[in-house]
């Protein structure tokens, strides 16, 4: 029961490993593309110099100067690529650290060992940081990562970039997001994203809102018509805005003018961003909590006289409130918990029934009797009995 199924628990860690590997790959690709381009330019420049020199249009001194210029170009590129190289290093190192962290986990034998408790706490902090980053609480996330020394196990940097885009969208500016779409064009196409179209649509709507009709039409001609194959219906709807002022009460157009569309844009950007970088669409905290709360939830959790202060679901203000819509747990096997000591009753700690039918664990009753001259008091009814009056109970 206490053995850990490492394979199963490790299989949950897909984003943990995939994210830095993919970042490593993409920064590597960036620097490699630059180098390839440079080599092409270099080859053609050198062959030109060669031709000119043979034709007598360039003397050796000029050739020397030209070659010097090439060297300068290459050195400049090298400097420019320094940042990309640093990024590559960061992610390649980070992947290694994470792989080792998972490797450590495979050496933990049981669920009740200290090592497992420590690993669990690290995991909790990881998913808390993930949750906080998604909702924009970067300061707390950074502080927590630093104080627990788990900066390599989380992805704070990836949210800095996206925060800039989101803030711009909140200020009702599409430019940054459009730039982002351009940079990630191929990957966005792979996931069939319509974000760019939605952004263009919104910019058109804003022009229509300000009644800048000429600019709006020009904008539509330039940026909306490329999408006519897939989005003709939306384009024709939005063109209709030219005929309706922003204060219109006509429903479909009122909806188009609604400022809440900006929030939808932010949501769309977020989900595209997560998909691109291999984050899960919902925070890991939510998934894990739902599983845990359901597994712990019993009908007794919502009954006042069966409350156990140690049970997370029993607390009505916090987790109990979160668990209201979740299914109850299901059990084929009995497990009885002593109301006095909180210990499980089993063959080492037999369940004993008092004459009034209330059952407690033998150890708890024996301890109570030893401190009270052999008398025991039922905590729930107040009835007093002698320790000799208890009877063994068999539950399976």
């Amino acid at each position, binding site marked *: 029961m206490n053995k850990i199924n490492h394979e199963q628990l490790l299989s949950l860690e897909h984003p943990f490993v995939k994210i830095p*590997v993919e970042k490593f790959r993409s920064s590597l690709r960036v620097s490699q593309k630059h180098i390839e381009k440079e080599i092409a330019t270099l080859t053609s420049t050198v062959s030109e*110099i060669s031709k000119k020199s043979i034709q007598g249009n360039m003397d050796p001194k000029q050739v020397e100067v030209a070659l010097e210029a090439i060297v300068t170009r290459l050195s400049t590129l090298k400097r420019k690529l320094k940042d990309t190289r640093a990024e590559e290093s960061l992610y390649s190192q980070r992947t290694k650290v994470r792989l080792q962290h998972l490797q450590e986990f495979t050496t933990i034998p049981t669920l009740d060992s200290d090592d497992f408790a420590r690993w669990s706490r690290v995991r909790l902090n990881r998913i808390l940081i993930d949750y906080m980053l998604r909702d924009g609480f970067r300061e707390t996330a950074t502080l927590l990562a630093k104080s627990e020394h788990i900066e390599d196990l989380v992805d704070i940097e990836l949210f800095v970039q996206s925060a800039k885009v989101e803030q711009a969208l909140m200020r009702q500016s599409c430019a940054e997001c459009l730039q982002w779409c351009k940079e990630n064009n191929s990957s966005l196409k792979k996931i069939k994203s319509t974000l760019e179209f939605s952004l263009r649509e919104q910019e058109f709507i804003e022009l229509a809102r300000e009644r800048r009709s000429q600019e709006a039409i020009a904008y539509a001609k330039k940026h909306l018509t490329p999408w006519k194959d897939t989005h003709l219906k939306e384009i024709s709807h939005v063109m209709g805005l030219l005929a309706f002022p922003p204060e219109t009460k006509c429903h479909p157009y009122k909806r188009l003018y609604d400022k809440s569309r900006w929030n939808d844009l932010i949501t769309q950007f977020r989900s595209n961003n997560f998909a691109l970088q291999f984050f899960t669409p919902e925070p890991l905290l*939510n998934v894990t909590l*739902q*599983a845990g709360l359901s597994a712990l939830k019993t009908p007794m959790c919502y009954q006042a006289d069966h409350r156990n*202060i140690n049970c997370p679901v029993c607390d009505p203000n916090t987790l109990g409130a979160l668990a209201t819509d979740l*299914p109850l747990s*299901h*059990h084929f096997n009995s497990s009885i918990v002593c109301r006095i000591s909180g210990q499980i009753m089993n063959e080492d700690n037999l369940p004993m029934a008092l004459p009034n039918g209330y059952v407690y664990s033998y150890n708890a009753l024996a301890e109570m009797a030893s401190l009270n001259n052999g008398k025991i008091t039922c905590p729930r009814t107040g009835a007093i009995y002698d320790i000799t009056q208890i009877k063994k109970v068999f539950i399976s």
Partner: protein
Amino acid sequence: MESFIKDYDKIIKKQRTLETNDPLDRLIAVVNEAKEKIRADPSSVTSTLAVLGKSIKTVSNGISEEQKEIQSSLSKYSKAIDKKFTADMMAAINPHAFDNKENILRSTIAMHFIRQGNFEIGDTFAKETGLTVPDSMRHQFMEMFDIVAALKEDNLEPALQWATRHRSGLEKRSSTLEFKLHRQRYLQLLMGRQVQEAIAYARKNFAYFGNRHTQEIFRLMCSIIYMDHIKTSPYADLIAPNTNADIQHMFTRDFCSLIGLSCDSPLYVSVTVGTQAMPTMIKMASIMKAKKTEWSQQQELPVEINLTDDTKFHSVFACPVSKEQATEENPPMMMGCGHVICKESLQKLCRGSSNLRFKCPYCPQESMASQAKNVYF
């Protein structure tokens, strides 16, 4: 997992060699070489340039080979990751279960930080989310962490003062904390060879606990005789190394129970249980999806999730005969022999009549339905 890491190391090695033998440096070297040659011997311009053209081609072919190799190994590795870490976590989520409850979740997180003693993080979080943490809770936990810090340094004074102040609350919960603290202090004095002080301390403080801890007090006083070689005496267990950790744990538990809170942060408990439950939930969710039912619409999970003993907080009785969970309408009943089955199973056995003698399914003893009593777990 190990072989997985080894494969990654191979890729890193390749990338490192590419870094140290930087492609741009190689190209720069080749161009510089040609430049120097032309400077030294201007007449060789044509041939040098031809040679340069060829060497650039060779170098760049080498570079693009290496780059392609790394890219392809990385992409293979990425696919291997997909194969190895396969759980589809989103199958098991109910995306609407926490709708409109963000504030509850966030205040739970804030309280978690306070309970763990991360006050600075809790405050930053409260500031960023705009929530307020109840001041009283914060004060109480700060007090608790101060006392625990003192305990860690073997300073029992603050804990003792707290325990004496809350004596009645502790006694109501049958906690032996106060006595254990005094006991620890006494042993500290004894091990520090301050025998007179130890005896004086015992005289002053043990009297109150005379009735309830008589045996223990006897042992403590007798251990003075073995003071010099206690490790080899029958009283060696008094100075076992984990007594300090036990006292800290007991103090934390009692402190939390006195303010009506659980011993461990509830967030931590739920998340740990959740992590262990997730593989089962994912499997269940995918099976249910195939059958076109939504797991989150069920009243009850269709599978059992095994909990570890320390996460079992409520008694669950499943009738050994019918395998159904006991409810208010179907409570557990104990027969004369001590075996417990649920009411419905009992009624089936005695065929409705309360005077029929029937044999218990688990032992040869016979009894009547009217002799069966309700048990309360």
